[in-house]
């Protein structure tokens, strides 16, 4: 129905406009022009304090060469390094799994076909607010009352994971066939019966793959939290190696380790995506 409304545009006197899609083109053009202008403005207002491009570029090239061609460890052993990677993975895993459990229940309340309108709207607004605060700010805010360390990091990452997963899960729940729900309701099944016997079985694989996709994101977030919020793990070692020891070889090796893990996680999640979400690419 809507398709015809957008494609045949009429003027006020009923005449059909031949150049359809005009508005789309105009919006695209203005978006591009605006972004270009803002970019130019950005470059004019940058803070260039202490920047010497002629020196910085060759120096970076040299640094990158040292980092990636001669990686090595000097401040800690291989065992320690792997242990630190384990901590980062552990942080990511905890935030993901706790987030998934909490998000599951919140998503049941946020799905429009399972809950009333006001509850679902409230949850959506709260979730949008949580997502707008960068993860690192949540971690730092929690660090004040929980103390720096894994608890603050997991709580902070948990908040974002919940926000992300509630959105994904509730969309999956809303796609469950109406007929199934109606059939169960007509037999007098309770809300909880509907969830365990209709919603959960038909969406379980989606939920699992969304959770894994979030785990992939949480891994790099955990690295970042280690570096910026002192949450420990390989991110913190990276921060120490580059900011305190200026040990390029160690930075190189740590980067390699992060890169390797990230690529493995990405390969798994790409497979999951092409298997379970063939039509849509993620965002």
């Amino acid at each position, binding site marked *: 129905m809507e398709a015809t409304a957008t494609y045949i545009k009429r003027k006020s006197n009923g005449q059909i406009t031949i150049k359809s899609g005009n*508005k*789309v083109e105009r*919006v695209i053009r203005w*978006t*591009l022009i605006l*972004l*270009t202008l*803002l*970019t130019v*403005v*950005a*470059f004019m*207002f*940058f*803070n260039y304090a*202490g*920047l010497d491009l002629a020196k*910085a570029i060759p120096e*970076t090239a040299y*640094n990158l060469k040292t980092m990636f061609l001669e990686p090595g460890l000097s401040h800690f052993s291989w065992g320690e390094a792997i242990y630190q990677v384990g*901590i980062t*993975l*552990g*942080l990511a*895993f*905890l935030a993901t*799994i*706790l987030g998934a459990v909490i998000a599951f229940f919140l998503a049941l309340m946020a799905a429009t076909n399972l809950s009333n309108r006001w509850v679902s709207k409230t949850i959506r607004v709260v979730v*949008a*607010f949580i997502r*707008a*605060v*960068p*993860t*690192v*700010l949540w971690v*730092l*805010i929690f660090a*004040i*009352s*929980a103390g720096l360390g*894994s*608890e603050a990091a*997991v*709580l902070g990452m948990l908040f974002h994971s919940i926000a992300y997963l509630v959105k994904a899960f509730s969309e999956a729940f809303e796609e469950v066939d109406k007929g199934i729900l109606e059939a169960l309701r007509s037999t007098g099944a309770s809300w909880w019966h509907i969830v365990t016997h209709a919603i959960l079985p038909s969406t379980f694989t989606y939920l699992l793959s969304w959770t894994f996709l979030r785990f992939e994101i949480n891994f790099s977030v955990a*690295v*970042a939290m280690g*570096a*910026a919020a002192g949450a*420990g*793990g390989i991110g913190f070692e*990276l921060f120490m190696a*580059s900011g305190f020891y200026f040990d390029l070889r160690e930075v190189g090796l740590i*980067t390699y380790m*992060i*890169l390797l893990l*990230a690529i493995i996680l*990405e390969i798994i999640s790409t497979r999951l995506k092409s298997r379970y979400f063939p039509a849509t*690419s993620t*965002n």
Partner: protein
Amino acid sequence: MNEKVMRNHRKRQTIIFSIIIIVLTYLSSDITNFNIIHGIATLPEAVKWIFSNLFINGETLERLPKILEKLAETILMSIAATTTATVVSIFLGIMGSKTTGTSTALGMFARFVASIARNIPVVAWALILLLSFGQNSVTGYLALFVGSVGFLTRAFIESIDEASLSAVEALRATGATYFQIVYKAVIPQCLPQMISWILFMIETNIRSATLVGILTGTGIGYSFDLYYKTLNYNAVALVTFSIVLSVIVIELISNHIRKVIL
């Protein structure tokens, strides 16, 4: 009989799956020293703290112009990083896509560059670049730029692959040159999708810019870090609210643009 076997099988699978998850959870909390009970116990305290300390008062409002200036710097930096990354990514995307790629070697090169740029976290790029570029906007800009190139290239390769086969074939049949095909068929067809990705990238970059700013000492991240470390929590609240507001406004604008063009 058969149904029973299947049910038992299913049950066993569920049990094994739950055991694996529980063991992994236990291992992770052990290795990270995470105490779930302590974690839950601090949550009400944290919420109480947030409500009793994180509010904006008149004194902090005096700092508003300064904070807004930093915020503008951060937003502009994110936009600049995204748009310049777009230019590079379009070339890499065309090189890497199966429909428009000219040679497998170039395609491999594009995918390789994108994969490296994307999978090394933005934080790591920021720390690496910080060593020689020093504490200024350019460091943050470059870190965001590299991350965006990685992400956008993959997104563009996917949109080009999805969108344009038939149009490319039609143009090829008329004897159009390669550049005509790319310029007249591929780009116009993928443009709405690409803009949608660009807007998404800007949103993501503003959040990462805060994080990068804490490390490189620029933009709104630096303001947050400064007030946080000097225990000026009212100013922290103001910074947080200004970030939230700007992220939500930008999200609303880009959702609106998306609705029109897609």
